């Protein structure tokens, strides 16, 4: 039975259970809603919840566990000799899976009967050719062991799916029946449903945390893998970034310092642009602008935040770069060689960050109580004195938070750098030279045919880990700053 059908049946059980639970509760109360402990809706929801939640949980666990189980069973049937022949378990298993998929396709297209797919043998027919006929291309002739493995793989998966369907449906029906039997007037359905909702909320919150942990581990293992192939000291203190794409290991220089420098330099220029402009526009919008101007200007500034960064990249490449060259290029000052430079990317990234700084700061300044302004005006302070000496200090923790958020964005930005700053990793103080950042290099190391066993590809994970630790440090620093000022101003 297709998976979609299973889900539809589950939903149907829930809907029917909802109606039945609702009416049973009403009936047990003799049709008088006031006798019920909860609203009828809760009795129905309780049954639906019992029908879906345990069944879905089993379904998810089963879907996660089945591949592991099938793989290990199939692997056990394969002779050890196959694996030791210069390949890996993964490669043999992927052969098995491909043949199994091919058999599935052949059966689905009618080129092979079900029984034939199960009884097919390498001695009686050319499996490679048969599968080639239905459009499944295999790299080499199929060995008897692989075909057997594939057949076992198919059988196990088919049995597994059937078992799963039956089990899930039984659990759904059982859950619904259990909840239905309890749907009487005295039953505290509302409390139960609310506990279910609480669990849902907790689950949603844990997804974010667990994902972060998952990402961290994925990065961590690959980083460790990288440091096995490439010395850590050379990575962290190397001043040269020159990966070779020719072969494995050997000639590559993978020093992170030029990339770190480029990242910080570009982010620094971006913040230099974004912080004053963003902060000043926030002050204007929240303190000086009338409601009409504010109503138009604030959304306009926020539109800047909605522009995809690749568009900013184009703006850097086609407009800002040439403009800067005409100002600082060979004809005039001679500082700038080409349109792609730290300055180009920094300026455009700064423009991108303006709405982050201004919108957040604006909200924070607006949150400063009117009593503070009244107090200051009442003492004969002007508007600007009030802003400088009362409102900004009171809003400072929030503003620092906004700036650090913008800094995180700047450090993680990729497209503007790729298009605006060039791809050359170099250590230089001249902001008119091309440089590149960690994120841009992660992209270039992993695009194309990446061999995930080579240090040239694995270095991307080490770079990602570096970036992760950097932004984590930045956030901890931000929290520290915010807390420190909060002690003083609260």
């Amino acid at each position: 039975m297709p998976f979609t059908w299973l889900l539809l049946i589950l939903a149907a059980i829930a809907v029917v259970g909802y109606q039945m639970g609702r009416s049973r509760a009403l009936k047990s109360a003799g049709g008088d809603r006031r006798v019920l402990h909860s609203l009828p809706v809760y009795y129905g929801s309780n049954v639906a919840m019992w029908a879906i939640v345990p069944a879905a949980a089993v379904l998810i666990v089963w879907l996660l566990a089945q591949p592991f189980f099938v793989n290990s069973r199939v692997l056990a049937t394969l002779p050890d000799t196959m694996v030791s022949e210069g390949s890996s378990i993964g490669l043999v298993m992927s052969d098995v899976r491909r043949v199994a998929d091919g058999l599935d396709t052949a059966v689905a297209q009618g080129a092979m009967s079900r029984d034939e797919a199960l009884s097919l043998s390498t001695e009686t027919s050319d499996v490679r050719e048969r599968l080639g006929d239905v459009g499944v291309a295999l790299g080499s002739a199929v060995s008897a062991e692989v075909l057997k493995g594939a057949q076992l793989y198919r059988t196990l998966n088919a049995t597994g799916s059937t078992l799963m369907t039956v089990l899930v449906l039984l659990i759904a029906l059982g859950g619904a029946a259990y909840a239905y039997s309890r749907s009487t007037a005295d039953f505290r359905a509302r409390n139960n449903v609310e506990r279910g909702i609480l669990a849902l909320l907790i689950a949603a919150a844990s997804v974010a945390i667990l994902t972060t942990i998952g990402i961290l581990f994925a990065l961590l293992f690959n980083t460790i893998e990288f440091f096995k192939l490439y010395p850590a000291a050379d990575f962290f203190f190397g001043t040269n970034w020159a990966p070779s794409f020719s072969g494995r290991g050997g000639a590559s220089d993978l020093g992170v310092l030029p990339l770190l420098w480029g990242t910080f330099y570009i982010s620094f220029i971006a913040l230099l642009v974004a912080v004053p402009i963003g902060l000043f526009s926030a002050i204007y919008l929240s303190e000086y602008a009338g409601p009409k101007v504010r109503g138009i200007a604030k959304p306009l500034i926020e539109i800047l935040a909605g522009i995809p960064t690749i568009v900013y990249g184009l703006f850097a490449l086609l407009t800002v770069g040439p403009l800067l060259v005409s100002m600082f290029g060979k004809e005039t000052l001679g500082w700038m060689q080409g349109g792609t430079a730290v300055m180009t990317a920094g300026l455009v990234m700064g423009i991108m960050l303006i709405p982050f700084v201004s919108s957040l700061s604006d909200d924070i300044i607006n949150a400063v109580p009117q009593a503070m302004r009244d107090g200051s005006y009442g003492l004969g302070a002007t508007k600007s004195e009030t802003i400088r000496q009362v409102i900004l200090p009171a809003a400072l923790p929030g503003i620092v938070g906004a700036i650090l958020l913008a800094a995180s964005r700047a450090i993680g930005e990729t497209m503007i750098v790729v298009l605006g700053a060039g791809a050359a990793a170099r250590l230089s103080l001249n902001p008119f030279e091309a440089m590149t950042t960690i994120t841009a290099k992660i992209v270039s190391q992993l695009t194309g045919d990446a061999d995930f066993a080579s240090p040239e590809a694995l270095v991307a994970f080490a770079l990602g880990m570096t970036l992760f630790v950097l932004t984590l440090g930045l956030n901890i620093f931000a929290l520290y700053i915010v807390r420190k000022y909060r002690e003083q101003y609260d």
Partner: protein
Amino acid sequence: MNDMRIVERKVDTNEVKIAAKDVQVFYGDNHAIKDVSVEIEDKTVTAFIGPSGCGKSTFLRCINRMNDTIDVCRVKGDILIDGEDIYDAKVDPVQLRAKVGMVFQKPNPFPKSIYDNVAYGPKIHGLAKNKADLDDIVENALRRGAIWDEVKDRLHAPGTGLSGGQQQRLCIARAVATEPEVLLMDEPCSALDPIATAQVEELIDELRKSYSVVIVTHSMQQAARVSQKTAFFHLGNLVEYGETSNIFTNPVDPRTESYITGRIG
């Protein structure tokens, strides 16, 4: 009500400090103050009483042009302080507010240290020549705010960490530090407990020696305790204005009598 105290207390001078003539205030289309004329004397505590929404706070905020910060508010008529029209185009509201200090209903110390809270006004008006001078001003203001002894050992602790009553006295000290001539108080005790209220009332009586104090209050007992003159507002009109003892013992207008006896308001 302590009638004995009212009788004993004499008004020191009869010099007019603030003179309002035919003042009208509009909030958009709402006519909030109608034809109010009043003469407020120097070195006197004048209380504005009346039911909520009667316009007493609005009128108070006209005296230092705090209503200017509200967009929809329009003021007509003349308010003179020492004979000068404060709504004249020549008058800078910022300078006026330095001369006419204000204390608000809710204590609103700035998120700064106690010292910086008091030093804020003197600093922006350049009243102190040097640090020692500023220290003196701050100490004096805190003494006049009757809070010096409580905070002298922690001048650099945040002002927001004080109790409500202390915060309000800090705000009074802050207002006093700019050496105003008039002190406006908008229900200064409504957020305070009885003990803090008593302290602030004592302080107001003390401040009368140097300033003309105008206080808006909902508590008639408080008006009777601290003021020499009382003005009763009702629905935007100034109904009755006179010696506090007369207003409370012998009101002329029936509306005043109803209010002070608790029948309206």
